[in-house]
């Protein structure tokens, strides 16, 4: 008996030593090859190049940038470009996907079939192909002078999508900050009120606080005299003046990512809602609870529990898929790292940077969604 137990342990130890040994040996071998190859090809390593002048043009950027800036700054511009596709894409894909998922469950046969066709078609065609398709369609649009004008102040042409803008500055930013603060305060307040209600059973009114808190951003805006004038873009010569322009590259990438991901989200939402048994509805209704209350307090919390984990992986997918931007020349982090790689020859460092950025983003989304998931699980108790 003692012998066989020892045997088991010894076997485990031997296995681990062998596997770790082989892994270390392979890594060491690759490492020595790499250092040798780098020395032979006179490729320098390290991140010193980040301080040098990048010299690459970046067309579509939110941060101020010129080719005279450093590689480091260029990388930052790339990260911001990646994030602005990913964040806006996630929001839009969630909205669209939820709508399609609900449409899929509609009692209206036509609506539900159309939603099914939408999901099936988008899921079964590679995203890269869809991206190229949207980009070609974008390029095939008429020029600025013959731009398609669905509503006043919105132009769609081969220059991209132009939409009305509001001024952005310190004033607008502080109002936004005030709004966020008010939201956080509202959330904290609601929690503490619910906690107190749990203790003594007395229902406390929330809306007076909500009203006061909602006044906060309004007050800030009014006292600082912040301007919210909307600027409508207009055609001047061969281009547009005023408004915000979404470049054709950005716009096609956004459409492709949003529609593609929404198909997957729709299926997740559908199965999440279906996972809540009809008995839950019936039981809650039998207690005399209102439809909205049942949906908010009974069905949704249970559905979300099923929805959140696969939703997290869809958000991660969307973020990773945004790297396909390189195929149509939208300058996200991958595209900029790729240019850097070609300019400096420092393949390892450039690719390591891409991976580092995406690992960080993936990890942050995972952490946030795990936190949210834990939060949802608590609500359920």
């Amino acid at each position, binding site marked *: 008996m003692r012998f066989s137990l020892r045997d088991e342990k010894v076997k485990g130890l031997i296995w681990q030593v062998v596997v770790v040994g082989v892994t270390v040996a392979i890594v060491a071998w690759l490492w020595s090859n790499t250092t040798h190859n780098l020395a032979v090809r006179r490729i320098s390593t390290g991140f010193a190049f980040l301080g040098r002048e990048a010299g690459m043009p970046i067309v579509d950027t939110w941060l101020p940038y010129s080719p005279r800036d450093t590689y480091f700054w260029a990388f930052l511009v790339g990260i911001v470009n990646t994030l602005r596709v990913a964040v806006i894409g996630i929001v839009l894909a969630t909205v669209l996907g939820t709508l399609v998922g609900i449409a899929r469950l509609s009692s209206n046969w036509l*609506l539900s079939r159309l939603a099914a066709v939408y999901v099936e078609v988008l899921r079964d065609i590679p995203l*890269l192909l869809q991206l190229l398709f949207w980009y*070609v369609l974008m390029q095939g649009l008429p020029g600025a002078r013959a731009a398609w004008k669905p509503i006043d102040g919105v132009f769609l042409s081969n220059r991209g999508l132009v939409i009305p803008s509001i001024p952005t500055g310190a004033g607008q930013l502080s109002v936004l900050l005030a709004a966020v603060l008010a939201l956080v305060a509202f959330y904290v307040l609601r929690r503490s009120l619910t906690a107190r209600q749990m203790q003594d059973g007395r229902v406390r009114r929330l809306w007076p606080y909500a009203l006061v808190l909602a006044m906060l951003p309004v007050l800030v805006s009014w006292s600082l005299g912040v301007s919210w004038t909307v600027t409508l873009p207009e055609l001047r010569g061969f281009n547009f003046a005023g408004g915000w322009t979404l470049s054709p590259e950005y716009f096609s990438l956004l459409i492709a990512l949003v529609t593609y991901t929404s198909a997957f989200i729709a299926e997740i939402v559908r199965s999440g809602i279906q996972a809540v048994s009809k008995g839950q509805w019936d039981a809650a209704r039998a207690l005399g609870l209102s439809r909205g209350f049942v949906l908010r307090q009974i069905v949704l919390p249970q559905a979300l529990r099923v929805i959140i984990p696969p939703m997290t992986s869809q958000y991660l997918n969307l973020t990773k898929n945004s790297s396909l931007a390189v195929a149509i020349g939208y300058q996200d982090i991958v595209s900029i790292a790729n240019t850097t790689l070609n300019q400096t020859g420092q393949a390892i460092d450039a690719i390591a940077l891409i991976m580092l950025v995406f690992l960080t983003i993936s990890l942050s989304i995972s952490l946030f969604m795990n936190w949210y998931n834990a939060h949802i699980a608590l609500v359920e108790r």
Partner: protein
Amino acid sequence: MTSATDMPQGSRSLISRSDRHAIDRALRWLRANLFSSIFSSITTLILIFLLAKMLFGLAQWGIWDAVWSVPGNNTSECRALRGIGACWAVIPEKFRFILFGSYPFDQQWRPASATLIFIVLFYLSSRRVWWRRELTYVWVSALALISVLMWGGVFGLSFVSQDRWGGLPVTLILATFGLAFGFPLGIAVALGRRSKLPAIRSLCILYVELIRGVPLISLLFMASVMFPLFMPEGFNLDKLLRAQIAFILYAGAYLAEVIRGGLQAIPVGQQEAADALGLSYWQKNRLVILPQAIRHVIPPLVNTFIAFFKDTSLVLIIGIFDLLTTAKTAIIDPAWQSFSVEVYIFVALIYFAFCFAMSRYSRQLEAQSRPG
């Protein structure tokens, strides 16, 4: 429903009654499914209007106003109709290149038969009757046969090096070989991640999380740019093979997670029973645990296959001639430059056919495995 016994034969009035029944049923169906409430009726009408408008526009572009053939390479007729009608003439002109790339023209029956073998292989593997040991032999011989067909150099077939391969066979090769090799890798990693040995477990976690945390493109960049640096001087692998290795590692990580899900679903009693029988670790997993675990996760596995099949299109970015790259290259030809939409639709149909077949299959399996 009217069954045959209700109807006395040859009576005309009763036949018309069954007709009336059918109409009644149709009306009831319409009322229940399309016009159940005012809101539903409005939705239906709006959708019918939009759908009709869209289909009409599509038919006008794709059928009535389309150009189906042009004389020679003269695309002036297509150009005149740009934006109004489709130019399907580009498909017969370019389909050989899109499907088989720059494989020698007179030898293209070889990639064509390789594609057919792939499809037969997929079909056989999807049948439950075929899920036996013999299937492994079929796979090995089919993959060998495909290699012989594609490369040649034996049996009187001329040698074709893999930088001339292209199109659909390359897509199928990347996907199939990636899955065929990634699957055992995935099983090993999934077992490793559930192992009691800490060193092995953490190595497996590191591998899976690293691969899943970064975009596939960065792995492909690694394969195309960094791989030559990793290897001893003077040693180089072909680009296609390097991409294939990246795909195997990628597939391994994703498949491992799916298989791990299956392993988790196996009740611990199975493990204990196998242990009680005195089976070794490998016997236990091979004979008891894995067969059950994999059966559990066949639908999500097929979904992973679909995702993987679509993901092979990313090799476009590192310049390997798969189906999407040949399509994109086909329209570089100045005469046909402005007809990418038509070509993309053609290629999308091919991808769709494969993925739709797989997703139908996965749903069918799910329906079968559902209790009741």
